[in-house]
């Protein structure tokens, strides 16, 4: 649905050249929620703004739903932008318009006739659960409500793709969860493809099917979340499930194990003890339910045969740190 190749973007800041995006390739499949995770300054915001060409990339191509945006003239680009919804960190609502008026703006731009607008506005506000606040101005809404208006507005022109620029970063944890649930719900009900950028692990955990970790303008890793989480060297795994430092007793050897997908639900520990005839103790860790399956990190202590145990676990799909 989204295909980005060789994307590069540099800025001039105080006579210095800053490379914001340094050769990124990205593919988002239809109906997928793809999260780009990184710290501020990693270039993720620039990357996202290059997808609908709010920023012009210096090199590379951007293709959305089969249309290459980088080659379009201004008029065609405006038409294509209407098919790409965008949600903003600080909501970016028009302060002088009500919630309904903000949604109506997107419809006006899209050329929806006046008679149809009122009906669509009501539908969209209903969809995001804000039907009762239609007449409220943004200043009278809470952060979560504002972001719901932002989402309704982004969906006004029936886009197939939603771009989310840190949509939950300005919200408290509880509101974050409810907005993420809404995005997941829209993804399931409307088949909406979502490309989001975030610095919050929580977002990747709760809704992303695939993810990339971005640093210094580059993707350091990228792929389906369950696959990334099975790799001991994965930064995503380190971020979502930080390695434990819990102490070991004398005579024990430690195994740092990542389980993801099938491995997360298999009776690995009892099998390990039975097959190798060793004692296995869980020092720390656990398995959690993510958007696309279950995963977690376990810190195990074994009474011997550490190398065999590691091989045994690897053969069953777990990731074991050397």
């Amino acid at each position, binding site marked *: 649905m989204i295909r980005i190749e060789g994307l590069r973007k540099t800025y001039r800041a105080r006579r210095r050249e800053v490379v914001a995006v340094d050769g990124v390739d990205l593919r988002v499949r239809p109906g997928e929620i793809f999260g780009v995770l990184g710290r501020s300054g990693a270039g993720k915001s620039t990357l996202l703004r290059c997808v609908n060409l709010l920023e012009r990339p210096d090199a590379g191509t951007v293709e959305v739903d089969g249309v290459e945006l980088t080659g379009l003239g201004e008029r065609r680009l405006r038409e294509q932008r209407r098919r790409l919804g965008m949600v903003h960190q600080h909501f970016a609502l028009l302060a002088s318009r009500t919630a309904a008026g903000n949604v109506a703006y997107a419809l006006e731009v899209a050329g929806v006739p006046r008679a149809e607008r009122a009906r669509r506005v009501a539908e969209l506000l209903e969809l995001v659960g804000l039907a009762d606040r239609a007449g409220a*101005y943004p200043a009278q809404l809470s952060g979560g409500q504002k972001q719901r208006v932002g989402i309704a507005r982004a969906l006004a022109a029936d886009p197939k793709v939603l771009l989310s620029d840190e949509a939950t970063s300005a919200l408290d944890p509880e509101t974050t969860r409810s907005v993420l649930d809404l995005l997941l719900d829209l993804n399931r009900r409307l088949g909406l493809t979502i490309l989001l950028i975030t610095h919050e692990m929580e977002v990747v955990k709760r809704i992303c099917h695939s993810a990339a970790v971005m640093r210094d303008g580059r993707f350091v890793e990228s792929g389906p979340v369950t696959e990334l989480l099975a790799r001991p060297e994965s930064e995503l795994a380190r971020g979502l499930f930080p390695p434990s430092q819990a102490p070991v007793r004398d005579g024990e050897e430690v195994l740092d194990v990542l389980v993801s997908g099938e491995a997360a639900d298999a009776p690995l520990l009892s099998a390990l003890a039975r097959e190798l005839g060793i004692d296995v103790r869980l020092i720390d860790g656990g398995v959690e339910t993510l958007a696309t399956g279950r995963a977690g990190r376990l810190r195990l202590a074994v009474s011997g045969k550490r190398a065999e145990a590691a091989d045994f676990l690897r053969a069953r799909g777990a990731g074991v740190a050397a």
Partner: protein
Amino acid sequence: MTFGELTELLWEGLKETLWMVGVATLVTVVGGLLIGVLLVLTDRGGLLPARPVNALLGLIVNVGRSLPFIILLVAVIPFTRALVGTTIGTTAAIVPLAIGAIPFYARLVETALREVPADVVAAAVAMGSSRAQIVGKVLLREARSGLVAGLTVTVIALVGYSAMAGVVGGGGLGDLAIRYGYQRFETEVMIATVVVLVVLVQLVQMLGDVLVRRLSHR
């Protein structure tokens, strides 16, 4: 001077002031909005970047703002004659008043438009808005309370400028205060004029404040 004569004089002066300031305000709104919008659009990183145009507009605005009004009043006389056919009288005074106020209001418009958050403009671009839609439905509309606040300041400045219109026979309250009150030592005329001016300015400010409050939804 009798009370009747005094009120007659004040009423005439007030009418002339209102006419001069009123028409000049209308012209200033159109000119100031136009230049203010262009200043924002053509700036670096604006929606229609054009450095030379921006620099030229900025220069014109600055020159307009640095000329003392009394000099402007005389300097534009040839232009006034070409435009309204005469260089004396109330209507002739409107030309320099508008020319003096347009650069002033243009800067206030520019400032008000820059208050519209960049991400709101970016959101409008991302929705596929045209430039005309962004200017009309986003920039001007979102900034409207600031635009009205700036206009209030401009109208009051125009009331002040209009006092100098007497130089070209423009009349008005300020001229009345200078001719009767100052030059003929008729202090009561001067005081009465000043009171009317204070009330006028007060009313303009109150009206402006009410509008700003009603238009602001922050």
